[in-house]
């Protein structure tokens, strides 16, 4: 960076902290095998067909990009995968089993976590508490064990606190653990959202436009972060409009347009796909980066 500008505190993460997902039971597929399959999903809102017979899958350990023009159905796809919407037809299989009509929180417990296109933190809770809520997803302390401070409660609290602090440390938010979420700067809020999602120890982490509103330098940092997260043992599904970021970080890309899948392949393949260029990238691509 040039000395013409003060050193901006661009988000610093601590990639060395171990934040690998906690083993929470249930079957785990091997690296490279299918973790989640979207199977012929169609979703209609009245006349609008938001998803039209979409099928793709995510392999364990990869970073999959989901791109497409605005309104193509990307966020809707997340919503179907996390139980916010029920598909009109088709379904989602996770670890080989259909998700069916599971509730949102049940799907989270199974191991799919997400962030939101518009930040949705628990604004009046501290950063630490936000993350603790995520950690709690796999805890079972109820009124009884809390009331009598049973060993289970104490163990869960201690473990949860440790994991939450690790995650904050990893994200470089340790110093802000006791700040209210709503008082955090925008970039910190974005990262806190990711930390909260990671806290649920997901197999699959879904990020919806995590780089929105970031400048190129910040985007580069984010790219690094996403890679590190993957290296710690998570599978990542990424929606993003910034081609530099998408091309730089993903292993594979799925392209949607008008609710249909129009392409799938490696970043290079997708970049050169004429249909994708016509629908999404536009001709003057060099200019956009």
């Amino acid at each position, binding site marked *: *960076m*040039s*000395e*013409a*500008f*003060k050193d*901006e505190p*661009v988000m610093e993460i601590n990639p060395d902290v171990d934040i690998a997902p906690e083993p929470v039971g249930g079957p785990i597929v091997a690296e490279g095998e299918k973790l989640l399959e979207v199977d012929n999903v169609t979703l209609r*809102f009245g006349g*609008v067909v938001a998803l039209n017979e979409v099928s793709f899958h995510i392999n364990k350990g990869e970073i999959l990009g989901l*791109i*497409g*023009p*605005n*309104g*193509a159905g*990307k*966020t*809707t796809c997340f919503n179907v995968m996390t139980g916010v919407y029920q598909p009109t037809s088709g379904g989602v299989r996770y670890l080989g089993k259909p998700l069916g009509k599971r509730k949102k929180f049940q799907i989270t417990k199974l191991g799919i976590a997400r962030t939101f*296109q*518009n930040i949705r933190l628990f604004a009046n809770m501290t950063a630490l508490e936000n993350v603790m809520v995520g950690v709690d997803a796999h805890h079972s302390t109820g009124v009884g064990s809390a009331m009598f401070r049973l060993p289970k409660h104490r163990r869960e609290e201690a473990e949860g606190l440790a994991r939450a602090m690790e995650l904050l440390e990893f994200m470089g938010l340790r110093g802000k653990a006791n700040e209210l979420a709503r008082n955090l*700067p*925008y*970039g910190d809020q974005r990262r806190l959202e990711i930390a909260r999602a990671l806290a649920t120890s997901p197999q699959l982490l879904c990020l919806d*436009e995590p780089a*929105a*509103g*970031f*400048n*190129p*330098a*910040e*985007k*580069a940092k984010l790219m690094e972060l996403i890679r590190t997260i993957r290296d710690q043992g998570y599978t990542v599904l990424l929606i993003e*409009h910034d*081609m*530099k970021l998408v091309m730089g970080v993903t292993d594979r890309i799925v392209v949607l347009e008008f609710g249909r899948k129009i392409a799938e392949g490696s970043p290079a393949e997708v970049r050169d796909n004429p249909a994708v260029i016509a*629908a*999404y*990238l*536009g001709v*003057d*691509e060099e*200019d*956009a*980066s």
Partner: protein
Amino acid sequence: MLLEVNGLCVNYGRIEAIRDITFSVEEGEIVTLIGANGAGKTTTMKTISGLRPVRAGSVMFDGKDITHMPSHERPVLGISQSPEGRGCFVGMTVMENLEMGTYARPDRKSPAVKKDLERVFELFPRLKERSNQAAGSMSGGEQQMLAMGRALMAKPKLLLLDEPSMGLAPKLIQQIFDIVTEINSQGTTVLLVEQNAAQALKRSHRAYILETGEIVREGTGKDLAADPAVKAAYLGGDV
């Protein structure tokens, strides 16, 4: 001078979001503010449209001191903003949102409005397709289009655009910048905030760089775009 900002200071509680910034926008210009996250760009925009109270300094519009004018009176003067985070009326349909754009127009009942609506629909065919959908159920990018369309419906003298390309597909980003250039050529003055600095600088007459609440550099769009330091920090030169 259409807009003159003089020694402006704005606080969020103890946090000084912007400190003593001075800049101006000439009639007919496109002026861009760039800067990192939290530099105070949005705060500046909100202050100009009256959503944030001013601690010190002044804002002049068209030769009139509007520093303490209530925000809802400013659209009548011809200031219109497409806010960051879109700010669509989520419970209203797309059509109603666009109609809200004309709320303060003195000629809101004239046929001119209809023309403008057609123009917006031409720019964003998706909005026409979905004119009866609730804005809240539109996708992120669609809402961004709607916010922009709504601002255009106001036929402002000064259009404030806060990150209009956020969340938009690459192809659409091109289009947005084309639109900005075009409406500017038709006589609308534009104050633009963008993270997509390369594009923005290319199209603007002048630009200011904001850093932790202060203006650290200004110049023509071309000059700044060519400045290596700017390039390194904001244009996504290799980091």
